[in-house]
């Protein structure tokens, strides 16, 4: 077993478009141990696609090429669809952005968690699965889990919904959790709450976490390392606490755009993109 949970080398994802292919991810390499890795970047920079490629849930028309994609010693490029499916949920999970859409509207949320449990372990008795679901609801700090268990998604608040979603994904204790902008649909106070729950779960269960976001400050506070992506490439990898020492002009530009509470009241600078950033990097 390698010490790294995930190794990706030179991942490329392209989508067919009229008159050729449009590249969405262009040569991303990254490795992840049991740590919290943040991926930041603007919309369309390929953050989510990278995460989805790792899980193997890209649409079938996406063209993927990768030199090496290893998860915990398993070569994902050679893995059968069946093996990859068994990895999903059990070994790696993904939290989606908006709980409003990521829970089945006509199913009680508790049953959705039970469903996730029983997909993993079909022989588990129902009663046991119910118990586990209640326990995990409690673990994501839901008061009165018995009541929430039998609610429908529309009866939950956004923060509660996202916690249910997290519960659904961590209930089988995956080794890797990919959180795809888990807090961007939530307001700020709920955001911190959800993040602290996530942090607690990840630390306690020793998971690797890929935290996809476009909130630089949030990521720098929450993660150990930060990868900055632009137009499908990694422009910079930084230690989260040294974000201010970023050297790439894109990262510096992003940082300059952030308002500070005691900073000058002048208009914030507008990010000036440079064509040279698009060029392939060594």
């Amino acid at each position, binding site marked *: 077993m390698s010490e790294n949970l995930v190794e990706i080398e030179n991942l490329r994802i392209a989508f067919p478009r009229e008159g050729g292919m449009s590249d969405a991810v262009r040569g991303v390499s990254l490795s992840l141990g049991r740590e919290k890795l943040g991926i930041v970047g603007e919309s369309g920079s390929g953050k989510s696609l990278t995460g989805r490629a790792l*899980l193997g*849930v890209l649409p*079938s028309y996406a063209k993927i090429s990768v030199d090496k994609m290893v998860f915990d010693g398993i070569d994902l490029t050679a893995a059968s669809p069946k093996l990859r*499916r*068994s*990895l*999903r*949920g*059990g070994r790696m*999970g*993904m939290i*989606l*952005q*908006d709980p409003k*859409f*990521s*829970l*089945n*509207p*006509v*199913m009680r949320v*508790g049953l*959705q968690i039970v*469903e*996730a449990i029983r*997909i*993993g372990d079909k022989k588990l008795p129902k009663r046991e699965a*119910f*118990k586990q679901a*209640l326990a995990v609801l409690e673990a994501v700090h839901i008061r009165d*889990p*018995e*009541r929430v*268990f*039998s*609610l429908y998604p529309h009866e939950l608040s956004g923060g509660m919904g996202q916690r249910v*979603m997290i519960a*659904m*994904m961590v209930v*089988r204790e995956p080794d890797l959790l990919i959180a795809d902008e888990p807090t961007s649909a939530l307001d700020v106070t709920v955001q911190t709450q959800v993040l602290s729950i996530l942090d607690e779960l990840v630390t306690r269960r020793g998971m690797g976490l890929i935290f996809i976001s476009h909130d630089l400050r949030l990521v720098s506070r929450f993660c150990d390392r930060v990868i900055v992506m632009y137009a499908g490439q990694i422009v910079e990898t930084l230690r989260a606490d040294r974000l201010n020492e970023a050297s790439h002009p894109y990262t510096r530009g992003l940082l300059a755009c952030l308002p500070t509470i005691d900073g000058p009241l002048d208009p914030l600078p507008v990010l000036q993109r440079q064509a040279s950033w698009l060029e392939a990097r060594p």
Partner: protein
Amino acid sequence: MSVIADPIIDPKRALRAARIAEFKSFARRFMRNPLGMVGLVIVIALLVCAALAPILATHDPYLPALSDRLAAPGAEYWFGADELGRDIYSRIIYGSRLTLLIVGLVIVTSAPVGLVIGAIAGNYGGWVDRIFMRITDVFLAIPKLLLALAFVAALGPGIVNAALAITLTAWPPYARLARAEALIVRNSDYVNAIRLAGASDFHIIVYHIMPMCLSSVIVRMTFDMAGIILTAAGLGFIGLGAQPPLPEWGAMISTGRKFIFDQWWVATVPGFAIFIVSLGFNLLGDAMRDLLDPHLRQRR
């Protein structure tokens, strides 16, 4: 945490109360729809006729009384008697059983078939979708009655064969409908979420896509009933559906055709029965759609 062994006892009660309240408000809104009520009354009357046929009928529907051949409507024969002197009223009452039998058989077979095919086609897309949809296109391209006729001719006349033939012509619209819903649902985040949790395609189709297709399929079912009744009657009229002496309405019209100018009631009464029952199902289906479709609900 003493409740943990039985997690859903109390919310269940609350839910039941909420469901009853929801049903009551649904019933209230339904009552305000006069045409829907008419439809409901007709359909209930049909069900009552079918259930209580031996009690409601005044004569044996099969027993000929040659002395009363083609008797006019009156105190003895409420709707007259047919060419063998059988009471038309009793035959209509018993015929409602056959009508319901055919409708029931067709609905329980065609809707699930269409649902499964549509959900599979919509979920997988690509060539699976193309093959299934071209097959449904072939079925849709041919007029329903004509196709049913061909099937019955191949299978042999009879009431079960007629139902089977109608089923074979009735499933494509359901498949189309289910496919359209599946196409919407399969890319939704919650299907992705359960896929991320490691669910198989089978699991996703059965537990997440089909339930979402169900509502539109059910509404479509109530509309289809009238069409099924007409097709069944059409087959009976041609002589390929229910066989005499069964009191099937279409077959009754067919025999009454010979006497239409002199003894009009023989053909007219079963015709009215078909007309009223189809109307009833249509009105009911219309009201159901108005009430169940959230988009239409908001517009008012």
